[in-house]
């Protein structure tokens, strides 16, 4: 799915990321681990096509990524990034989950059906008409997950989706995440929990000081 070659991301004189070679295969689940400041979020941001690298080349689906505006917008529609503390737009839960669908021109009955199915997947269908801003942290995290899942993008990037939420919600989201590769979705998820890699049966990627130090494929 992705092939990164000599990717560097610098902020001033600070090198946030320096990856010589990294391959992310289609339909697999990766856990991205490393200490704070190791470059995990920077890597996710690059993989989400939100931030261009300072130098280096990325291939997506076998094609070299051109960072001009039109191309990047096209790539962004194939990938969704879910932040650790996701932002929910004003309006209802439905409005939030439908946002990406509207952008893609999906409206009416089809949109409603997809939104309902996505909310059902995270156990929140009865929250459909609730105001998004009135939800608890765990509920908001589930809505954001539903919003990402509704798009059925090729890649789902998750920035510590299981941090700062209650155990019950974490178990539910873990089950949802683990089921995604079987549906053809490539998942890259950052985590601080060393048990996640084993529990989710994932391929671990380790970063240290912005450098990719280990990638073990099962």
């Amino acid at each position, binding site marked *: 799915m992705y092939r990164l070659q000599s990717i560097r991301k610098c902020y001033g004189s600070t090198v946030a990321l320096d990856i010589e070679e990294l391959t992310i295969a289609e339909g697999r689940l990766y856990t991205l681990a490393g200490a704070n400041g190791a470059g995990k979020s920077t890597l996710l941001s690059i993989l*989400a096509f939100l931030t261009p690298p300072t130098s280096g080349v990325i291939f997506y689906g076998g094609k070299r990524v051109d960072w001009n505006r039109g191309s990047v*917008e096209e790539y*962004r*529609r194939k990938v969704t990034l879910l*932040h650790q*503390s996701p*932002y929910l*737009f004003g309006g209802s839960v439905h409005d939030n989950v439908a*946002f990406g669908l509207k952008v893609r021109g999906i409206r009416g009955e089809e949109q409603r059906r997809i939104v309902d199915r996505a909310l059902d997947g995270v156990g929140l269908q009865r929250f459909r008409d609730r105001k998004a801003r009135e939800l608890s942290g765990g509920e908001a995290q589930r809505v954001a997950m539903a919003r990402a899942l509704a798009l059925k993008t090729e890649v789902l990037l998750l920035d510590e989706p299981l941090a700062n939420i209650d155990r019950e919600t974490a178990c539910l989201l873990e089950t949802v995440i683990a089921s995604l590769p079987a549906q053809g979705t490539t998942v890259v998820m950052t985590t601080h929990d060393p048990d996640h890699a084993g529990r989710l049966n994932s391929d671990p990627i380790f970063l240290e000081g912005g450098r990719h130090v280990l990638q073990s494929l099962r």
Partner: protein
Amino acid sequence: MDFLFSSFASALRLIGSLSPDVFDAVRTSLSVSAGATVFAALLGIPLGLLVGLSDFPLKRLVVTALNTLMAVPTVVVGLLVYGFLSRQGPLGVLGLLFTPTAIVIGGTLLAAPIVANYSLASVRGADPRIVPTALTLGAGRLRAVATLIGEIRYGILAAVIAGFGRVVSEVGVAMMLGGNIRGYTRTMTTAIALETSKGEFAFGMALGIVLMMVALLVNLFLNLLQQR
């Protein structure tokens, strides 16, 4: 104190009797203020958003200039526009001096920096996750900016209302560019200044009460919207 109480009672009677002079001043004030606010919003909102959302070499200078323009005395704006609209001025041929249009022009120049600064502050205060969230959900750059504007709409509305407040309460521009012509360019504020100087304190107070009521209504409207 008796003087104040009796004037207040007379003022209430004037308002209750719908005095044509009071009515005309209120109508003129509201119409020129609304006109100036619309034009100030058309200029100020895009300017504030543009400065807030983009990075360019002289950005700090532009922000400082916008802040300074907020504090420009109304008479200075009046003087400047007077220079352009007076018979000898470059736009004198248009014959706009001492018309409601002249007050609208002056009011626009007064309110636009306020609307721009408040809009800029709204963008700066916006949650930094809004645009990346919209982008990662597949929105293009323009759609993401539109989403940001939607999320900070109450801040933008407050900017417009602050602009309206500046125009409806000022005297300098209305006096210098409108000429305080009864039934034509006489606004609430110029009427208060004139009538009070003539000793018609109750009339001035009546208009003062109406002015306060307008301010109250505008703020109630804003609060109502924010609670939705």
